[in-house]
């Protein structure tokens, strides 16, 4: 299980982002090794979503550097072509799924393969169906998002990300919009994704998931990385007061260690 010797596949250095006068990321540094599952924790508004969105270039960071694989850019003067190249190394699983409303489940999965990766037609359908089978939804291939439950939509969202075979998958609170009874099975599916050895960065408030699956836990607050370490280090021996306070609020007493 030791991934400590793996190469660093994502390197975020001094990333800053503000919306108007509001400084949301105030110099964030993160390193992720190949195959690691990194969980990001932090109170609402601490910049977790913005950080993931900057990694996927859904938001353009103001400054800092980003390296994914062997491609490194200065975020201040990154060019359109570089953005596209870097973006194609990552995939995003959204909090509210964001499935293409005008596409069937299968088309949702194959859209990126066809348009971005130019996978040959003959291969596309097979790969799309494989991904849907993998998330146990092959029978919904022809259904539109509006005909799927939230849990099913998120499964398709995960299939869509996995099918792209990216270097890194970014999950932004993938279960927080789901009905409570669907959270468990969706987390199981995300564990299954982790089991394939793909690198993942997951923003979540599901502490049991973080403890079971994460190789590294990062705690963010107020636009900074406050503390990071193994799940044990963060959950058992948090060093920073803010981490302790946050954990005591979010972990029910009967689970606390």
């Amino acid at each position, binding site marked *: 299980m030791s991934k400590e010797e793996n190469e660093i596949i994502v390197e975020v250095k001094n990333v800053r982002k503000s919306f108007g006068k509001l400084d949301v990321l105030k110099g964030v540094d993160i390193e992720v090794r190949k195959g690691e599952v990194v969980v990001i924790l932090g109170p609402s508004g601490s910049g977790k979503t913005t950080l993931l*969105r900057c990694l*996927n*270039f*859904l938001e353009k960071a103001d400054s800092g550097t980003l390296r994914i694989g062997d491609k490194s850019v200065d975020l201040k003067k990154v060019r359109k072509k570089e953005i*596209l190249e870097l*973006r*194609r190394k*990552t*995939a*995003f699983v*959204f909090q*509210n799924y*964001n*499935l*293409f*409303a*005008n*596409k069937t489940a299968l088309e949702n999965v194959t*859209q*990126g393969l066809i*348009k*971005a*990766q130019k996978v040959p037609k003959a291969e596309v359908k097979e790969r799309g169906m494989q991904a849907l089978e993998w998330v146990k939804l092959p029978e919904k291939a022809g259904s*539109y998002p*509006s*005909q799927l439950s939230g849990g099913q939509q998120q499964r398709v969202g995960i299939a*869509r990300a996995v099918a*792209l075979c990216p270097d890194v998958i970014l999950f932004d609170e993938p279960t927080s919009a789901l009905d409570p009874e669907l959270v468990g099975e969706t987390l199981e599916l995300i564990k299954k994704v982790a089991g394939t050895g793909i690198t993942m960065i997951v923003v979540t408030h599901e502490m049991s998931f973080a403890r079971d699956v994460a190789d590294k836990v990062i705690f963010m607050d107020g636009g900074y990385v406050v503390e990071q370490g193994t799940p044990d280090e963060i959950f058992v021996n948090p060093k920073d007061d803010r981490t302790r306070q946050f954990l005591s609020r979010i972990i029910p007493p009967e689970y606390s260690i």
Partner: protein
Amino acid sequence: MVDWQLVKEYFPDIAAKFPITLKMVIISISLGLLLGFIQAIIRINKVPVLNQLALVQISYIRCTPVITQLYVIYFGVPIILSNFGFDVGGINKEFYAILAYTLNQAVFLGENIRSSLQAVPKGQFDAGRSVGMTEAQTLLSIVTPQALYISLPMLGTFLVALFQGTALAYLVGVTDMMGKVKLLGAKTGHTLEGYIVCAIIFAVISIILEQVFRVLNNKLDFANKKAKTDDNTVLRAAGGNA
């Protein structure tokens, strides 16, 4: 009294001018859609200068009667063209009508396209980019189809309004169905019968158009594939076959 025999006699002569109406409608709506799409992109991206020009044009078209717009084009464009040395004598009257209707449609369709594009949830754009598509690909394959569906009811309304609005084109000398009624009236002294023929043709075609849009709407309805049963207003407007 209405002479129904005359209505029958007029019918083929007047209906023969229907293609002229059709031509004005098809060209104006097609060019209007194209210009409207450009206007929408200019407005959404707030392109400097062009955005301000668009706003002026939008106010002008929205705040003046169509008949005024027709006359301004009909009397104004020849002056401009002849200043550039064009021989305006050879220009077909339909040209002026089509130009006026096109500019009118571009504004209304453009605002409709803009609000429809903006009504597509931002997350759809995010998702498109997140799977590695370019912005243009996302706009074309994800956002535009959804915007089209959102805009469809208004598009149908505009098309029917345009179709009926072309009835004014005879005022700038186009011999469409209405123009034909005037000619027949001048010859026989009976105009009411001619207008009844026009009323029938306009009504029938309008109802057909509305039905077509209703079917199209159901076909494109990815948001709710099951047939809508609660939309009584649409059914009533479409001719009440509910």
